[in-house]
């Protein structure tokens, strides 16, 4: 039994593939092992489902985060390009920012003489904000965006893999259950046959 579970391959993240039961009789030699075997399959199935929920939550979070990163990167690049638009365009940037939910007001950003000296603050999370020179900020955001997109790809792949495995395990559980039902019926018929013989 454990040999069956350990014999399957694993995907790139170490998620084991679900074994498929070809012949139930080969798995369960002794009928009294049914409960143990069935519980193990149920346990594996619930693990897959739990992992799927976790991955789906990750995907949801990334789908929220990636647009924000793209937006932030676009703003930084816009600032940088504005800084490089020639020596004559030394005028400050005017922008509207959100003061509250439905309220906006104006602010201006002065562009320093040395374009690379422009600094921005990036909110990193966990109540941490760091100030970066504009070029470093752009590099950091690009890296974060690439990492997030890769994470999204990987998580999506994992969710597909888990979905397949969940289907396989559900089929396995159904076949085990049906096997047990059939066995009980056969046993019942045999008992009735015995009673009839006695009578």
């Amino acid at each position, binding site marked *: 039994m454990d040999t069956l579970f350990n014999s399957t391959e694993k995907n790139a993240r170490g998620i084991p593939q679900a074994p498929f039961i070809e012949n139930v009789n080969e798995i369960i030699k002794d009928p009294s092992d049914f409960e143990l075997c069935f519980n193990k399959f149920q346990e594996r199935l619930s693990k897959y489902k739990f992992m799927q929920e976790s991955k789906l939550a990750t995907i949801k979070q990334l789908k929220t985060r990636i647009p*924000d990163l793209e937006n*932030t990167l676009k703003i930084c690049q816009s600032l940088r390009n504005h800084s490089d638009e020639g020596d004559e365009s030394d005028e400050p940037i005017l922008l509207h920012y959100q003061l*509250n*939910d439905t309220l906006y007001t104006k602010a201006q950003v*002065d562009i320093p003489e040395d374009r690379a000296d422009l600094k921005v*603050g990036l909110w990193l999370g966990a109540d941490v904000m760091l100030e970066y020179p504009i070029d470093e900020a752009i590099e950091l955001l690009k890296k974060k965006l690439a990492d997030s997109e890769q994470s999204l790809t990987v998580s999506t792949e994992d969710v597909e893999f888990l979905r397949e495995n969940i289907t396989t395990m559900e089929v396995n559980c159904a076949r085990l259950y049906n096997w047990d039902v059939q066995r009980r019926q056969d046993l019942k018929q045999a008992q009735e046959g015995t009673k009839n013989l006695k009578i």
Partner: protein
Amino acid sequence: MSSQKIDLTKLNPEQLNAVKQQFDQELQHFTQSLQALTMAKGKFTECIDDIKTVSQAGNEGQKLLVPASASLYIPGKIVDNKKFMVDIGTGYYVEKSAEAAIAFYQKKVDKLNKESVQIQDIIKEKTQYSLSIEAQIRQAAIRQHEAMSKQQQQQQKKESSTA
């Protein structure tokens, strides 16, 4: 309310329970509405406070970190602290002076206040209904209990007379 009136004293406990549950559901719905109104009112009040703070005399040209996006802040300074852009809904934004913006939000707050008062009145009314139905349920249960007691007594009398 429906035009049909029901005499609560003539309903049995099951029917009274059903009516009470209906009132409790309505009560919960109105309570949630009141909470939503309170939250909205809080936000608008915050906007008014923000406008008053920013439009103070000393804040023209005040330095600040401009929130350019949800996670990006740029050092900058306030320009024209007497003008504000207000989202008036359906994708339209209107630039208003500080006084006009405050009046706009105050108007919204007043409207929400009025609606809150209405909902509070409804909640009180339905709470009273719910309590009175509860009292009726208790009385109906007592009546049922008395009726069963009488039946038992009559049965005992019959049995004793038969013996």
